[in-house]
């Protein structure tokens, strides 16, 4: 397919020349009177993968669509490889988009799908065919090149969509819920496969997901959104260890974050109803102000001695998990989780103590 010379060349520029990857600066998107995304700022370095995560309706997909140029930006700017692309047509952004349902063109073969963007850019046929072959190899689709999309499995479609997006050597790759459309049993394997393929690319990758496992394993940094606002943007480790608030702790790690204060070598929380010797806690520095107690599922145990360090709580629910029983207990207004051995005898109420070293006290001073 011949095209005029006006089409911008897509030959690879060495990544080193690019001043930056993808930057989202103070982005606001409105649909009519509702604000879907409000003052969100992100950046993705070249070859980095950032996961955008949040509950449904938090604005994560809108953010992705704004970066792709599919929804109008009300305020803020989107930059890519040193260019301001805020007002650019989607066709001129050099962004590879993999939507949630993969959008593999049903009337084209696998190879034609992968070559679509190159045709649109007027890449010469030999170069295009070579590039398509490379992409087929990268995504292990070489044997399926002439297949029609309706003969492919979900995982294969995903790879076609990925290959098609990567074929144009985009500056940024956008994946919308890349694994949500696949069978849960397959997700683990495909997640590892996807991570391997992403590692082989040089472009800035943005993944939108609602699954914290996906975010933690695929993202080198995670941006957590709620109600259209960015709540925390950091590495998975730091999000896990030092969540900015109770929402982050709960959403990402299923953990409970309690406000606390330290007095007389004790951490005091739950309005003074629970005093825990600091010696029983792991103390870590926090970058987020106040003293807080971070409790995960393995942080608590049921104890027989009702001493001052124990918390009396009421069992509201118990759930068999194979190697143990997960109890949901209520202490005052708060719900906490605790695991007990499967043969434990549990009454209506229990005394809780922290498992030494398993609960974390986040303190501004180390």
């Amino acid at each position, binding site marked *: 397919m011949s095209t005029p010379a006006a089409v911008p060349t*897509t030959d690879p520029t060495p990544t080193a020349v690019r001043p930056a990857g993808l930057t989202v600066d103070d982005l606001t998107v409105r649909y009519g009177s509702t604000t879907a995304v409000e003052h969100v700022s992100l950046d993705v370095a070249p070859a980095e993968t950032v996961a955008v995560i949040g509950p449904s309706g938090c604005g994560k997909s809108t953010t992705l669509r704004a970066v*792709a*140029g*599919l929804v109008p930006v009300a305020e803020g700017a989107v930059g890519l490889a040193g260019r301001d692309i805020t007002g650019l*047509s*989607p*066709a*001129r*952004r*050099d*962004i*590879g*988009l993999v*939507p949630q*349902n993969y*959008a593999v*063109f*049903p*009337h084209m073969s696998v190879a034609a799908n992968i070559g*679509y*963007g190159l045709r*649109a*850019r007027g890449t010469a046929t030999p170069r295009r065919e070579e590039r398509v072959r490379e992409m087929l190899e990268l995504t292990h689709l070489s044997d399926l090149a002439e297949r029609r999309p309706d003969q492919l499995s979900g995982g294969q479609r995903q790879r076609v*969509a990925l290959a*098609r*997006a990567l074929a*144009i050597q985009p500056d940024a790759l956008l994946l919308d819920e890349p694994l949500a459309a696949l069978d849960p049993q397959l997700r683990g394997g495909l997640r590892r496969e996807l991570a391997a393929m992403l590692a082989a690319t040089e472009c800035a990758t943005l993944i939108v997901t609602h699954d914290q496992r996906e975010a933690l394993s695929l993202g080198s940094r995670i941006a957590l959104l709620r109600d259209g606002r960015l709540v925390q943007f950091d590495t998975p480790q730091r999000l896990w260890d030092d969540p900015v608030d109770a929402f982050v702790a709960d959403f990402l790690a299923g953990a409970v974050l309690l406000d606390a204060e330290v007095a007389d070598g004790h951490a005091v929380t739950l309005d003074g109803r629970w005093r825990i010797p600091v010696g029983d806690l792991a103390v870590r520095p926090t970058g987020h102000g106040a003293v807080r107690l971070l409790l995960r599922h393995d942080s608590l145990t049921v104890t027989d001695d009702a001493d001052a360090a124990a918390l009396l709580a009421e069992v509201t629910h118990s759930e068999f998990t194979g190697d143990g029983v997960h109890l949901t207990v209520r202490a005052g207004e708060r719900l906490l989780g605790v695991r007990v051995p499967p043969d434990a005898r549990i009454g209506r109420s229990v005394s809780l103590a922290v498992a030494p070293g398993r609960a974390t006290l986040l303190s501004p001073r180390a």
Partner: protein
Amino acid sequence: MTRLITRLTCAFVVIPLLATLVAATSVDFSQGPWGGGLTLDWFAHAWPPLAPVIGRSLAVAALVVVLNLAVGGPLAWWVARHPSVLTRLTGYLVNVPLAVPGIALSVALVGTYPMLRPSGLLLVLGHLVFTLPFTLAALVPALADDELRTNESVARSLGAGAVRVLRTITVPACLVAVTQAVTMVFALSFGEFNVSFFVNPPATPTAPFALFDSYSTQRLELASAQSMIFVAFVAPVLTAIVLARRRAPGRTP
């Protein structure tokens, strides 16, 4: 039970066609089926006067199809992609010719635009107005499809311009719907009688009008032969519609 009713309904549709065929091949139908023997003479007599009329009807139908796509296609796109109160109102407006009896609208057309009648322009426009609802009915759901819209965004993100997206993604995805619209519009225009009857330029009738003339002035056998010729032109088009509809995606669970 339902199978029996379906069979009977099919018979109800087929029997008149067969009966007309019998009449058209009988030397003298008034003496009963194949009375006086079997003959194809009536077809030989029926064709020469019908030929120019059918040619004209085909031309009108083809023109109506082209206009439907040229005018109805963009309209369908707008209705499908920018749903609002305005598009809903437009939907009602387009359907007016379905609700107003055909002859009433025809009479109104002739009364309002008598100067357009002799050229045949009014006939074409009348047919256009009558067939647009069917074009819209076929195209709007196809264009509103979420999957198609995602595919279009992906194509655009891959660097395809608007024309290329239309040519390589939108049109192929709507091919079945377009086929359905084209064939339906063609068949409807070809067999349209109400508008044709009143709006026809008197000197140059279209096929249904000529048929009507035969019915009132010619022998039953000759009229039967002409009817069968007419059906022979319409049947393949209808078969195409059905095949297109059956290929439409989303029918299989």
